[in-house]
């Protein structure tokens, strides 16, 4: 029976069990908990979207051996969201090589949670065929969607592909055998190809999308995690895809390229999110580059230090930021005398190209510190 319209949520890369060891203890637990909370968020998105199905394009778990607590609680959370149905394929992080995990998972999974561990079509709803490509191991070395082109399904049924992996580079004459051809949806006659692996939302074509992770986990992809809310009007019809926010934490990498004349505090303040409430769930990385005057560097450091407690996590990277120092900046350390001699020496070394990068950076930081002492402020 031909389907008139099919709605579902497309997600991937939940990476449950990730520990975030490179973050401070203060935020680490919240990040872990937020990943678990993504299940409920996805279910809520499904309800909001009027969808009964959530297709997960791989990497539900961060490793092949998540703790019992992680996977059992994940199963429990999905079960709690019934009647929403979860269709899961293993990705490269939790491939089928994780036999123990998936055996136990299958044994514990309730009716509304289905593990698709074979590349064969599954009718997830009358008239809707899901063509899953589970990852057999971490590096399969082949295009796992190839089989979809040769897979026949009943006439008039929707064909939805589900896979985990990267798309072929269009600039390459010869495609990587592991990558998925971007025209797979067309060559396999798919109404929609749901992909996972890329942690941000990406539209590959009108019928092919990466959903991104429902909860961001790195600064590479700024913003909050989301899923793709998909509506397929009918067989052969172009699907409608909208991004539905699901993430709790807002990840921001703020790059500020400063000039000596610029007010860095103003630039910083205008770049960071406003409102102390939302900042609690914000992880920001401030990447400073360019040039800054010595007093303003101290001023900016003070401002950042003052703002930092409001954020879930705020880190500063100033490896590329150079100190521009005018004579009156040095006067503020000392107009004359020994302190001035020291300041002049440090300033000279910070600009001495014959020295190594590290030595120059050390001299620059020492000058900043001296300025801080002289100004009576924190370095």
């Amino acid at each position, binding site marked *: 029976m031909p389907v008139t319209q099919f709605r579902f949520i497309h997600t991937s890369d939940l990476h449950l*069990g*990730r*520990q*975030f*060891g*490179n*973050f401070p203890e203060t935020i680490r637990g919240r990040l872990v908990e937020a990943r678990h909370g993504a299940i409920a968020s996805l279910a809520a998105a499904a309800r909001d979207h009027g969808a009964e199905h959530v297709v997960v394009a791989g990497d539900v778990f*961060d*490793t*092949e*051996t*998540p*703790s*019992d*607590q*992680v996977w059992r609680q994940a199963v429990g959370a999905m079960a709690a969201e019934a009647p929403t149905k979860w269709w899961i394929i293993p990705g490269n992080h939790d491939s089928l*090589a*994780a*036999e*123990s*995990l998936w055996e*136990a998972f299958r044994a514990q999974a309730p009716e509304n949670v289905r593990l698709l561990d074979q590349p064969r079509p599954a009718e997830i709803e009358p008239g809707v065929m899901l063509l899953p490509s589970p990852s057999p191991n971490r590096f399969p070395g082949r295009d796992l969607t190839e089989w979809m082109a040769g897979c026949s399904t009943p006439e008039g049924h929707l064909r939805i592909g589900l896979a985990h992996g990267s798309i072929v580079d269009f600039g390459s004459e010869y495609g990587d055998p592991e990558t998925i051809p971007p025209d797979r949806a067309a060559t396999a006659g798919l109404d929609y190809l749901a992909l996972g692996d890329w942690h941000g939302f990406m539209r590959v074509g009108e019928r092919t999308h990466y959903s991104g992770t429902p909860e961001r986990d790195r600064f590479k992809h700024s913003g909050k995690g989301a899923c793709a809310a998909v509506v397929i009007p009918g067989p052969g019809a172009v699907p409608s895809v909208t991004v539905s926010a699901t993430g709790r934490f807002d990840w921001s990498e703020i790059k500020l390229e400063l000039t000596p004349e610029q007010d860095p505090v103003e630039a910083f303040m205008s770049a960071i999110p406003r409102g102390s409430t939302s900042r609690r769930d914000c992880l920001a990385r401030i990447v400073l580059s360019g040039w800054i005057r010595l007093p303003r560097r101290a001023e900016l450091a003070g401002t950042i230090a003052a703002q930092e407690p409001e954020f879930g996590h705020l880190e500063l990277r100033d490896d590329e930021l150079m100190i521009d120092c005018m004579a*009156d900046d040095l*006067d503020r350390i*000392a*107009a*004359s*005398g*020994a*302190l*001035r*001699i*020291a300041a*002049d*020496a*440090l300033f000279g070394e910070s600009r001495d190209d014959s020295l190594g990068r*590290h030595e120059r*950076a*050390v*001299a620059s*930081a*020492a000058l900043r*510190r*001296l300025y801080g*002492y*002289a100004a009576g402020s924190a370095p």
Partner: protein
Amino acid sequence: MKLRNIRLDNVRRFVAPVEIRDIGDGLNILSAPNEHGKSTMLDALHAVFFKNRKAWDSETRSLVPHAGGDPAIAVEAEFDDGTYRIRKTWNPRRRGEAEVLKSGQLVAQADAAEWWIAERLKSPKDGGPAGLLWVRQGFAGLDEGGADNARRNLMTSVAGEVEAMTGGRRMNDAMERCDRELGRFLTPTGRPKQDSPVRQADAEIERLEKRQAELREVTARLSEGLRRRRQLRRERDELVDPAGRQEREARLAEAEAAHEQARRHAEGLERVRQSLDNKRIETERADEKVAELAGRLDEAKAAESAREAAVRHEAAAATARAGAERQLKGADAIVAESEEQEAKSMKALRTAQEFALARSAGKLRKDLVDRLDRAAALAERIAALSAETRAEIRADVLEDLELRHANLEVLRRTRDAEAPTVTMTYLPGRSGGVALDGDPLPEGVARSIPEGAVLAIEGVGELAVDPGRRAGGEELAEAAREFARALASAGVDGIDAAWDSGRRRLGGESRIRDARTELEIVASDGIDALREELAALPAPEERDEEGPSVEEAEEAHRIARERLSARRRELEATRESFRLTEAAAIEAAGTLAAADARLERARAPLADIDDPEAERRRMATRATRLRTELDAAEARYREEKAGTPDMDGVETTLERARSIVEAANGRIRETEIELAGLDASIGLQAGKAVHEELADVKARLEAECRRRDGLRFEVDVLVKLRDALQSARAKARDRYVAPVLEELVPLLRNFWPEAGIELNAETALPEKLVRPGAEEDFDVLSGGTREQIALLVRLAFARLLMKSGYGAPIILDDAIVFTDDDRIELMFDALTRQARDIQVIVLTCRQKAFRDLGANNLSIRATGG
């Protein structure tokens, strides 16, 4: 810079505007009682130059009068480029004003004005003191806090300058703070502290690395276990797959059936082979029997033939022997005849020889008689010759004479050569008439006269010439005597006679030798032996007849002897021939006996067979039949063998099929066991989230490494800063302490001749006053002395600044309090001398004491508004 005018409005007690005008170039004095506003004036000056218009601290707040309002201060100052008016106000809102005007025109305001002021106060050389120098009213506390406090207060009075030099308090603060922060990481000796954050980070990193290694090992084991389990499961599934199992069993059954069939076929073939072997043996035996009988028959025939031949041969041999025997007897008779003839010829020969011997003995006797006669004649001759020869001079005697004669001749000739000579020369027409020793003396011939001479001259008489005695004469005479005695002994009268006798003796001896040689030939053994030989000859025999010829007899005997030899050789040949025929006859008899025996042996086996030939034919027929049967049996065997399956191949196939089944079953058991172990092992690890922990540890490790790197960077920064500060302070001291001392010492010596001063190495403040024979710590000096030194240090700074092209006003606020009247005069002198090119403003309440300073008097006056 020189100050010209100071105006205060709403500053402390001066709620209404006041000002000090007409401040001169050199020495100025504002002398007024206490609480008159001098210090307010000084504070106002300090504030306008050094307090930012936005500053609202104790100093600026202290300027506000009780009634409130914003204090305002204005100063007119003269610089090289003109006179400027500087004005500032302060308020609690930190929005004070600042402006700089020149000739009523605004030059700078707000922050720009502040920057302008800072630039004007800065020393033209980096690091120099600021442009205002003063001694504040600080000595009042001298008696309150003891020496240290007094010193501190005193040094406070020069703090600006010293700080400008060494960084002073700010430098100390910076260094202390730097050291304090560095102290978290390093010990005072610069070694890393045990509990430093870097060490803690290192320890944490070490812990995380260790844990990471452990987890990697666990995860590697786990991954390997999972991989192995997948492999084993796949293998087990393939092994227990029913289709596979059925295939293996079918293959085994097929191999077993093939093996059974092959085995049965092999047994049948073996039977055929055994039958064939039996037939082959039977046939061979029949062939052997046929051959055996034929052989015996052939042997019997051959033996009969051989016997017949032996009989014939034996008869022929007997005939030959008889003939040979007859020939032998004939030969014997011929030889006997020849022997008889030879004996006869021998006898005739002997007779002829006897006759020849008798003839030979007579001839020999005659010859011996002749030789004996000749030998006797030779012996006689030898005896005669010997007698003659013995009378002549012997050879040795002759030789002696010859030697003596030769010697005498030499002596004589020597004498003659040395002897005088006479030579005659005749008158023309005469040719003689003079004789020498009786001999005519020829003309022109020199005649030696060794012994002298007598010259007979015809018609004249004789002339005797005596040569006189000469050397050698005696020797010659002695030699002549000896020679004469030798001649006499030899029996001769001169050498010539001696020579003749010698020759004769030699001829005689030669003839004797010839005779003796002949005698030797004739009678080699002597004459007596010859006589004995003659005596030994038989007496001569008398025969009448001549006798037969020996030669003929010998010829006849030779012929007889040769004939006898020929006959004997013929006899030997005949005898040998006979021996041969006799041996042949014996051999023929033996052959015949052997042939008889052979025939008997050949006939013996056939004795029981009635018809041996018929029997041989019968057996040959049977053998032929058996051969035909054997060929048929062999053909059958070959046929059977050609159809035999490859038993090795069949057995190998069966063995392999069994092995496959057994291996599969064994492998199933092994995989089940190994899988059970792996399931248990993986089950233990899988739920422990080792991968999660590994990822977590890895991330933590990265973060900790970053943190540790940051801490190390922090240490590098602090060390760099500390080093920079220490280096800068050392440089500052090197740059200013020595010049200050250079300026200070001449001023000091106005007060204390030959005095010197030591500055503290750290603070650069005065530490010791050094006078001849005494070295006094600054702290134990009297208040007046310390006060004077402080002021002189200030003046030295001012002189230093002025030399550098930047004159700074000196402001003294009650700076001379403890100085006595004598010293104050010296101080006035010093001030006056410095004020020649430096502006000095003295604020004092000691109106009387400073009356004679001789300075430009200043006063604080209210302004018009």
